[in-house]
């Protein structure tokens, strides 16, 4: 059983939280992190619960809200951090940056700057699993906003007709940039759209990592055992702005709404659960927190120490066939 236990889920959630917070600090200090960052803070339970249901050799595609996915899937932090800084030691050698993290060694097929573009790619990975006769599952992360893109529709239909092993996992944080779901989306629950593809559509509290994990596990098992795709919708909230470093206005969400969701911080909830269930006590959690803190600082140190890619890399052929294998 490859499922992660609650302690490990908590650890990955904390890694995401601290990775995002730390990278925002570095960004605000100025200079070191170019371009926008789309933090996953608030989404940690959704992202980790989903990935906890996956095996290491299962696949995952992401989107612009990109840091949480590979971390949850088990990617090493240092190359991720170095990637944000555009360094040679980055997971993509500095070529991808925050929006295009990918770590194929843990099945992370890449985050995408184009909303909705990752869904068909996940379906293709699932097809690959079928053709090659493996039992790998592919999971596509996307937002409520992406559920209005044509690729959402085409992907769900394609996966459904061929009963491909895919989990479509919607991180519904209620907004696409400053646009509320109600303003842009003709259903209250994205999960309701599953009916258009004769697949199960399940909603889950996205702040509760165990609840997410259980729903995701069922979907993954269905997929793995030939039962076809599912649509899972985790209701969540982002604690930061859409993107930091871009000057996006911040007066589109009410203080009460933010307060309501902040009160259900997934990290706080997970910590409480660890304590309540006795899976981990206070000192153990404190040790774990300190460990994550060290990981983050190590990762940042690695990132800072890593060199920039050599300028000659800029002119590297755009073709893989021109490179040595």
């Amino acid at each position, binding site marked *: 059983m490859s499922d992660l236990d609650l302690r490990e889920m908590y650890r990955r959630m904390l890694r995401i939280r601290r990775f995002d917070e730390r990278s925002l600090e570095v960004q605000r200090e100025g200079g070191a992190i170019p371009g926008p960052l789309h933090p996953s803070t608030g989404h940690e339970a959704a992202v980790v619960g989903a990935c906890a249901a996956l095996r290491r050799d299962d696949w995952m595609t992401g989107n612009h809200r990109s840091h949480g996915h590979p971390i949850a899937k088990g990617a090493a932090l240092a190359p991720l951090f170095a990637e944000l800084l555009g360094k040679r030691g980055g997971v993509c050698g*500095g070529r991808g940056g925050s929006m295009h993290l990918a770590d194929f060694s843990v099945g992370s097929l890449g985050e995408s700057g184009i909303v909705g573009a990752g869904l068909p790619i996940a379906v293709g990975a699932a097809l690959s699993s079928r053709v090659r006769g493996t039992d790998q599952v592919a999971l596509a992360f996307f937002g409520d906003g*992406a559920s209005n893109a044509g690729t959402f529709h085409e992907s769900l239909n394609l996966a459904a007709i061929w009963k491909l092993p895919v989990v479509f996992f919607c991180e519904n944080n209620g907004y696409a940039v400053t646009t509320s779901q109600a303003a842009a989306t003709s259903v209250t629950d994205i999960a309701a759209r599953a009916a258009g593809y004769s697949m199960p559509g399940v909603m889950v509290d996205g702040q509760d990592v165990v609840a997410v994990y259980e729903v995701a596990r069922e979907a993954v098992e269905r997929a793995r055992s030939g039962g076809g795709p599912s649509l899972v919708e985790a209701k969540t909230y982002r604690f930061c702005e859409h993107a930091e470093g871009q000057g996006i206005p911040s007066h589109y969400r009410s203080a009460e709404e933010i307060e309501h969701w902040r009160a259900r911080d997934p990290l706080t909830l997970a910590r409480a659960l660890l304590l309540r269930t006795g899976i981990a006590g206070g000192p153990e959690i404190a040790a774990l927190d300190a460990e994550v803190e060290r990981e983050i600082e190590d990762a940042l140190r690695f990132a800072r120490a890593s060199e920039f890619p050599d*300028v000659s890399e800029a002119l590297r052929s755009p073709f893989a066939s021109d490179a040595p294998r």
Partner: protein
Amino acid sequence: MSARELSYLEAIHEAQLLEMTRDPRVILLAEDIGLMAAAGPYAALGKNRLWSTPISESGFVGMAVGAALTGLRPIVDLVISSFAYVAMDQIVNQSAKAAGMFGWQRRVPFVLRAAMWYGQNMAAHHSDRPYPMFTNVPGLKVALPATPADAKGLLLSAIRDDDPVLIFEDRNLFAMRGPVPEGDAAIPLGRAAIRRDGRDVTIVALAACVGHALRAAEALARDGIDAEVIDPRTLVPFDREAVFRSIAKTGRLVIADPAHKTTSFAAEIAALVAEECWDALRAPIRRVCTPDVQIPFSPALEHTLYPDADKIAAAARSVLGVR
């Protein structure tokens, strides 16, 4: 008409607001403009003029075509030009073809705005400069404003034009300030601007390359080389006469185009000149473009790739046979 200084982005909004105020048929469709519609100058336009869309570019670009065919003059702002691919069929097969294919029963007065976010540390997905491909699509006009005044003037003309017009805004120029005439300051599509007179070499420069070319010309002037800088402003229609006149004088051509080199619009200009202006040409043509590579994220890599004043000056020297 007096001229004050505005930024390029302010000039765009001034044109858009002006025309939306003047002509009730003009509407704006774009993602995430709910806040813009709710307060400030756009709110004064009243109901039903700004449509804050879902992330459905094919859908709302297609809507613009339908609206244009039925009496409106829609503007779509794609915000980032790399998103044009998602709506490509509606741009290329529908907006560009509808009028001609239906025997000119109706016109398609439709404006597509799309800013090019290259050089912004946005990595491969967001950094495209896709205008060359649209110039290969008959029925589309393509504009590339390089100054605040042109950002306003070309947008005014585009909105008033009866054909689909694609305006590729240069994100690197958003903060650029310059004189912008007040009021109706439309600049006709198809007329180039001579940004600098010169007699030794012609530099045709597109978008932010216009500024680079002017800086290159200054550097060249210090060496006694007198460069002429031409900003075509629109690629379709293209003011070929302005370019030919200049080459008749200089005999030498450098083209600075931030697009990838292969099948860039610089290629089209070079081809036109090699066909139509051959007798005047006294040296090989040089293109200064972005190399054919996927744009890397790392600033250590990205910022080395685009044309700049040094590369343009070096190309000018090379066609003049000086070092």
